């Protein structure tokens, strides 16, 4: 973000012929244009319908109880926890792109970081709904927070579940702060570019009166860098803590030390797939090929390939440990995955997460928008299946064959799942229309500065 880092960017990050003015106008006009694309209204309509489904499901589950869902003995964690982990994982790529790649001085993150951060926030919102409803009495959710209460009761800080409360709520808060701070200068740009007085006032209020002063930029840059530095250990801790929810249990398939790194790699894998799923259509609709260049697509493809291989290593270690442990329960867990009643889910997982991403070795595949979109959709599905395999398949057959059972999701499980997908895309649709989807001031930093014209007089 700092000038020092952007002065020396390699080429390929921004199309040729761009100036400070053209970059500003192109991105600001996506928001300030009077002609809303027809496709945008269509997207609002479709995704809004799914938000309606979400509302219907939540109201029902709220008033009639979580018995409407499928989880029951022995599978007490079903779609709710699967989707919680899935959404949290998707969110992680946003923080990775905005924070870790910033610290690693990767200039190519500039054009995609804002949208990826927005994705993080919407994904965390979706994730948060699940444990909240899963408690069964969401109106008492504040009991999870350390607040003085008339019962005189307090939390047990030795439990990974309370760690999760701290990790996820910190993550949601810090992500939102990071996102908002990042948008302040761009909302000032929108204020300056807006012609309608009310639009001007709205963005003027949102940007808090930002005026591009040098002293402000200086503090702003340090604050952004610190937020990135703090988000990096945070994002790694969040999915680690989520994996502790399982690893600290004694269920075969959960009780394993590979979980933290394997969950974090899987989160980045899933998140990059979702970034591509969202950015490829937006790039095409808004003609952003100059800003989200082929180099961005290549790099995202490589990150998916690398994290996918880490995930594949995780699957291999799980199987190896199960065999090497000599425990009949552990080795049955793997036999059950390979050939039990849920074997199709397990083999689809292998197909989606290991086999299909291998096409990304080819540079030609990484350059093709359609191949990338297909692979990222496969990974979205695959990562969901991974959580299904871990959660449902471990619970449905553990130590006692007499207590084995199957999990049957109900339409309320599906309704909430489809509903959160709708909410996520709905929120993202609104974001693209009303907020700067690409960090304008950071893109200005990518514009080649060129020499100052010497000896020019007053115009």
């Amino acid at each position, binding site marked *: 973000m700092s000038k020092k880092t952007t002065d020396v960017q390699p080429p390929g990050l921004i199309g040729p012929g761009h100036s400070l003015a053209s970059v500003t106008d192109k991105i600001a006009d996506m928001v300030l244009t009077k002609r809303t694309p027809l496709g945008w209204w269509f997207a609002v309509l479709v995704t809004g319908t799914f938000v309606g489904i979400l509302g219907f499901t939540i109201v029902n589950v709220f008033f009639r109880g979580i018995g409407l869902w499928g989880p029951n003995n022995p599978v007490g964690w079903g779609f709710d926890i699967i989707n919680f982990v899935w959404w949290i994982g998707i969110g992680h790529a946003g923080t990775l792109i905005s924070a870790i790649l910033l610290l690693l001085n990767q200039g190519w993150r500039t054009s995609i970081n804002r949208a990826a951060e927005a994705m993080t926030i919407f994904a965390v919102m979706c994730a948060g709904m699940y444990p909240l409803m899963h408690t069964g009495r969401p109106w008492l959710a504040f009991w999870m927070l350390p607040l003085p209460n008339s019962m005189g009761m307090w939390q047990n*800080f030795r439990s990974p579940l309370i760690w999760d409360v701290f990790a996820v709520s910190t993550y949601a808060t810090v992500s939102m702060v990071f996102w908002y701070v990042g948008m302040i200068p761009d909302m000032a740009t929108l204020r300056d570019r807006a012609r309608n007085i009310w639009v001007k006032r709205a963005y003027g209020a949102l940007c808090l009166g930002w005026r591009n002063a040098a002293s402000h930029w200086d503090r702003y840059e340090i604050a952004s860098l610190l937020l990135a530095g703090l988000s990096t250990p945070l994002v790694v801790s969040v999915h680690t803590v989520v994996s502790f929810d399982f690893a600290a249990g004694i269920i075969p398939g959960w009780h394993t030390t590979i979980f933290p790194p394997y969950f974090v790699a899987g989160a980045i894998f899933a998140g990059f797939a979702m970034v591509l799923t969202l950015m490829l259509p937006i790039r095409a609709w808004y003609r952003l090929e100059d800003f989200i260049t082929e180099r961005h697509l290549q790099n995202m493809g490589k990150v998916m390939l690398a994290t996918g291989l880490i995930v594949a290593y995780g699957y291999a270690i799980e199987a190896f440990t199960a065999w090497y442990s000599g425990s009949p329960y552990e080795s049955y867990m793997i036999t059950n995955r390979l050939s039990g009643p849920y074997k199709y889910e397990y083999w689809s997982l292998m197909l989606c997460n290991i086999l299909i991403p291998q096409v990304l070795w080819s540079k030609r595949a990484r350059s093709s928008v359609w191949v990338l979109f297909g692979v990222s959709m496969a990974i979205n599905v695959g990562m969901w299946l991974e959580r299904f395999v871990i959660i449902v398949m471990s619970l449905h057959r553990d130590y006692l064959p007499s207590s084995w059972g199957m999990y049957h999701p109900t339409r309320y499980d599906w309704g909430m799942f489809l509903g959160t997908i709708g909410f996520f895309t709905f929120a993202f649709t609104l974001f693209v229309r009303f907020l700067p989807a690409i960090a304008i001031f950071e893109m200005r930093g990518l514009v080649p500065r060129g020499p100052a014209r010497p000896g020019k007089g007053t115009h």
Partner: protein
Amino acid sequence: MSHAPSAEPALYGLMAEFDHADDLLAAARAAKAGGYAAVEGYSPMPIHGLSEILGHKNPVALLTLGGAISGLLVGFGLEYWVNMIEFPLNIAGKPDFSWPAFVVPAYETTILFGALTAALGMLVLNGLPQPYHPVFNVPAFENASRNRFFLVIESKDPRFDLAKTKSFLAGLHPMSLAEVPQ
């Protein structure tokens, strides 16, 4: 301001407009060399080195460190107080002071307090939110968020003198030169 004739509105300062970051850097250097202290630059993106030339102080990092340390103490202190003093619970025979387990929430509060301090500290030190500021009175200033660079010498500067400062800024060959009403 005493420098402006009484019939005119009070003056905040003089604003010079440039169209290149290097021109702004050069102008800031010249203004400092000319002995002006109340100088501020405005640019569409951060310009490395400008703030050092203008001599601004930046305690954001130190504040954030303080915030993070207090987050650690608050988080760990809360856990200690809850599980040792207020509500000791025997869970699976584990000691009340299970400090390794307490690391995780304390780690999160460290980051939470640090991040909030960084963001709020930056805003407070910048004096934001601030709905009104005199620089916005200059119509050309709306390009400060697009492709123009501005240098303002404020009238509160002891060396500020309308005529002299104006000719000094004109000597820097700006694209335009404007008086900023208060």
